[in-house]
C-alpha cells in the first residue's frame, strides 16, 4: 500500500535478536502479586477487598471511579494478605496503595465472569465499550489510556479508519512481534470488534518491515476480511508514535492540540486488540500481559506472559537472573521507558518490557558543550529545534520554549540519542513541561483563592448589611427613607 514519509527519525541498534525468536512462555504463579490501584491514566480504582479476604481468579477487586478510570481484577485465586502502600513502578520510587495477593495455587476462576458475547457484531456498540471498560482494558503499548473511552470516540467523531499499531519501533521489545506471530487471529478478531464499535469501515495493521514473520502471520489471519489492510512500515524510530503512524499510513497530519479522532482515525496497540478479543468473546478481564525481558544484563532474554502484579524480581529470576551487572533496569523500551527504583516493583498493565541494560548498552557519558551540529534538528520527527529549545529552557524562558514547540514534543528521545555532546535534551524538555504544569497548578490555585476571597468578602458584606438592617428594626415606618 502507498505510505507517506515522516520527517526525521533515527535508526538505533534494535537488539531485537536477543528475544525475537523466543516464543511466549507462561510464568509459573509467583509467591505474591502486587496490584496497584492506579495502573492507567485517569482516576485510581476504588478497592473492594480487605485484608484476609479470599478472591477468585478474575474477580473484581477494585472498581473504576469516574469516566476515565479502569477496574482491576484478581489475576489468580488466593488471599488478600495486605492492602498497603508499596513502591510503584515509577522512577520516583513513591509508594501507592496496592493490593497484595497471595496465590493459593489452585488458579480457580470466579463463577461470575461476564457472559461471552457470541456475536459481537450483533450487539450495540455501547455494550462492547461497557464490556471493555468492565474488563479493565487500557492501552497496552505503554500509554495505559482506558480503551473503552477510545472505543466511544465513534459517538462524537465520525471514525473511518482503525489503525492497529504493531510498529514496535522501540529497541529490544519483541512482545508485540511475538503476539502477532502467535496470536494473529485473536488480534484480527479484536481489531474487527473495535472497528465495529467505532463504526470504522477500514482497518490497517501497521507493522515495521523488520518483523516479516509478524507481517506474514497477520496477513494470513486477515485474508478473509477485505476491509483489513497490512502496512509494512519502513524501520524508523519513532514510527510507532500515534500521530506519526497516522501520518505514515493515511497521509493525514494531526493538527496540534487535536486528536487523531478529529481526522477520523483511532489507533490501538496489537496487545490491546487481543485483550479486547478475550474480553468480548470470553468475558475474560485483563489479568495477564506479555512482557519482553531483555538486555545484555539478562542471562536468558524471554517473552513472558505474566500475571499483572508479578514482581520484576520474579521475572528476572525466571530468565536465569543477571548475566552481568546491569547499569539500569528500565520499564518499557530504552528510548521512552523509565528507570525502575528497585526490583520489587510489579508489572502493571502498561509494562511492555523489563530491560537490564549494561553501561556499554546505555553508552552514557558526561555532556560536552553543544557544537551546533544540527543533528537534533534534522532527526526531530516533530520539526522542533531541540538545540534552541534547550537554550531557552536553560534561561528559564518557558514562553519562548512554547513558541518553539515545547508542547508539540512527544519526548521520543531521538534528539538525546543522536547528540554527539550527549546533552540530555529530553531531560530539559521534561523539566520544562513539569515546570509549566506546576505554574499552571499555581495559577489555578491563585484563581481559586481569589474566587474564595471574593465570595468571602461578598458574604461578609451581606452579613454586615443584614446585621445593620437587624439593628434598627424598631425604626418608625418611613424612618429608613429619611435615614
Amino acid at each position, binding site marked *: 500500500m502507498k505510505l507517506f514519509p515522516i520527517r526525521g527519525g533515527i535508526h538505533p541498534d534494535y537488539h531485537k535478536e536477543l528475544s525475537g525468536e523466543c516464543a511466549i512462555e507462561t510464568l509459573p504463579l509467583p509467591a505474591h502479586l502486587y496490584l496497584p490501584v492506579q495502573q492507567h491514566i485517569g482516576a485510581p480504582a476504588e478497592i473492594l477487598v480487605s485484608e484476609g479476604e479470599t478472591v477468585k481468579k478474575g474477580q473484581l477487586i477494585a472498581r473504576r471511579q469516574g469516566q476515565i478510570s479502569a477496574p482491576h481484577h484478581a489475576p489468580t485465586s488466593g488471599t488478600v494478605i495486605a492492602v498497603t502502600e508499596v513502591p510503584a513502578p515509577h522512577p520516583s520510587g513513591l509508594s501507592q496503595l496496592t493490593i497484595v495477593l497471595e496465590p493459593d495455587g489452585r488458579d480457580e476462576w470466579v463463577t461470575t465472569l461476564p457472559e461471552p458475547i457470541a456475536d459481537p457484531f450483533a450487539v450495540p456498540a455501547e455494550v462492547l465499550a461497557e464490556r471493555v471498560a468492565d474488563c479493565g482494558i487500557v492501552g497496552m503499548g505503554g500509554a495505559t489510556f482506558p480503551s473503552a473511552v477510545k472505543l466511544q470516540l465513534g459517538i462524537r467523531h465520525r471514525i473511518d479508519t482503525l489503525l492497529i499499531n504493531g510498529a514496535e519501533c522501540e529497541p529490544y521489545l519483541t512482545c508485540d512481534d511475538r503476539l502477532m506471530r502467535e496470536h494473529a487471529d485473536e488480534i484480527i478478531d479484536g481489531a474487527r470488534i473495535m472497528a465495529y464499535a467505532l463504526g470504522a469501515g477500514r482497518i490497517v495493521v501497521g507493522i515495521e518491515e523488520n518483523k516479516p514473520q509478524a507481517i506474514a502471520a497477520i496477513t494470513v489471519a486477515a485474508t478473509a476480511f477485505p476491509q483489513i489492510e497490512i502496512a509494512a512500515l519502513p524501520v524508523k524510530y519513532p514510527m510507532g508514535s500515534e500521530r506519526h503512524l497516522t501520518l505514515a499510513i493515511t497521509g493525514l497530519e494531526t493538527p496540534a492540540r487535536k486528536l487523531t479522532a478529529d481526522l477520523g482515525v483511532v489507533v490501538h496497540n496489537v496487545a490491546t486488540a487481543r485483550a479486547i478479543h478475550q474480553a468480548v468473546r470470553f468475558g475474560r478481564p485483563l489479568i495477564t500481559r506479555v512482557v519482553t525481558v531483555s538486555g545484555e544484563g539478562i542471562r536468558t532474554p524471554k517473552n513472558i506472559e505474566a500475571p499483572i502484579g508479578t514482581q520484576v524480581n520474579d521475572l528476572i529470576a525466571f530468565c536465569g537472573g543477571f548475566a552481568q551487572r546491569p547499569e*539500569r533496569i528500565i520499564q518499557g523500551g530504552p528510548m521512552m521507558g523509565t528507570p525502575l527504583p528497585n526490583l520489587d516493583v510489579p508489572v502493571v498493565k502498561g509494562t511492555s518490557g523489563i530491560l537490564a541494560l549494561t553501561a556499554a548498552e546505555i553508552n552514557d557519558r558526561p555532556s*560536552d558543550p553543544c557544537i551546533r551540529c544540527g543533528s537534533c534538528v534534522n532527526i526531530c520527527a516533530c*520539526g522542533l529545534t531541540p538545540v534552541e529549545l534547550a537554550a531557552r529552557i*536553560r534561561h528559564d524562558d518557558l514562553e519562548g520554549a512554547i513558541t518553539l514547540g515545547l508542547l508539540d514534543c512527544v519526548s521520543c528521545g531521538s534528539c538525546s540519542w543522536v547528540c554527539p555532546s550527549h546533552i540530555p535534551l529530553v531531560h530539559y524538555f521534561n523539566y520544562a513541561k513539569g515546570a509549566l504544569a506546576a505554574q499552571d497548578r499555581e495559577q489555578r490555585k491563585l484563581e481559586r483563592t481569589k474566587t474564595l476571597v471574593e465570595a468571602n468578602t461578598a458574604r461578609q458584606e451581606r452579613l454586615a448589611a443584614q446585621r445593620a438592617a437587624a439593628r434598627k428594626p424598631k425604626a418608625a415606618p418611613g424612618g429608613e427613607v429619611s435615614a
Partner: protein
Amino acid sequence: MSQAATATISGPFAHNTNTVQRTMFTVVLALSPATLFNLYLFGWPSIFLFAVTIGACLATEAISLVLAGRPLWRTLTDGSAILTGWLLAMTLPPWAPWWIGVLGAVIAIPLAKQAFGGLGQNLFNPAMVARVALLVSFPVVMTAWIAPHPLFSDHSPGVQQSIAITFGGEMPDGVTAATALGYVKTELSRGVPVAESLTEYGRDTTLTYTPDLMDLATGYKPGSLGETSAVLILLGGLYLMRRRIITWHIPVTVLGTLFVMGTIFNLVDSSRFAPGLFHVFSGAAFLGAFFIATDYVTSPVSEKGQIIFGIGVGLLTWVIRTFAGYPEGMAFAVLLMNSVTPIIDQYTRPRLFGRTRKGEPLPIKVQP
C-alpha cells in the same frame, strides 16, 4: 533548575556512538591526505610552521582554560583546538615565519573562541578570524607564496636552512611565486584581460615557477597548504559526507554558486571575468566549501539554512575575488555569512508537526 537536579534522569537509555571528540578527529583524518601532500610539497619550513601553529593553539587553549577555571584535560583533548590550528595552518603561506602561526593561534583561540565562552559559543570561525586579522595586518608576509620545493628534491631546503626560514625569517631569494588568482588579479589591474592572463599564467617567464595544466590538477602549484590540492581536499570532503559528519548542502551550494556566477559573468565578458571552473579550482575554494564553511558552530543548523548560507558564501567569495582588493575572498565570505547565521537560523526553523509555518494548529482535514 533545582528541581531537575534532584529528579531522576529522563531517557533515552541508549545512545549512538558519536562524540564531539570523534567528530573533530574524523575531520582531522579527512584533512590528512591533503596536509601530508602539502607538507611534502613545501618541505621542512611548512612542517615547522604547521607544528608551531597547532602547538600554539593547544597552548593558548590550555592557558585560557586555566584562566577561566575550566576542566583542562577533557576540553584540551576534545580535538577542537587541534582542528582550529590545523585549519589555520592550512591557510598560511607555507614558509611564513613562526610568529605568524603563534599570533594566529592567539587570535583564533583566546580571542575568537574562548572570549565568546569556549567551544560552541563563538559566532565567527576562529581559524578564519585569525587568517583575516593576519592578512590585513601583515599583507606582505601573508601573500608570500612559494613555488613547490618537494622534500628530498634538490632544491628543497635542508633542516638547518628551514630553521632559518621559519624561525629566523630568512626567506631565500627567488622562491616566491604568484598563485593563479593573485596573478590574474595583478594582471587585470595592469590592464591585461583575464582570458589572456589565464593562458599566460602557465608561461610567464618572469615568474620563478610556472605550473602547467597537469600541475594545476594534481596540486603541484604555489599556494597555502589547503589551497593546492583540490583533488585531495575533495576526497577528504567526500569521506566526511560518507561518515555523515557533513551533508552536501553547504559544499555543493558554495561551489555551485561560485561556478554559476563565474560562468555567467565569463560568458558576458570574458576579458574581465574569470570562468567558473577557474574559480572553483583555484584559491581555497574546496577547502572553504568542505572544511571551513561547514564548521558546525558557525553555520546554520537546519538543512534549509545551510543552503542559504552556502549560496551566500559562494556569492560573496565571487564578489570579493572579482571586485575587491584581495584576490582570495573565501575567508571574508565565510566570516560575513557567520554573522548572519543566527538570523538564518531564526528564519529557517522547520515547520512544527501539526502546525502551520506561523505556528497555528493546522486546519482539520479528513480522509477523502
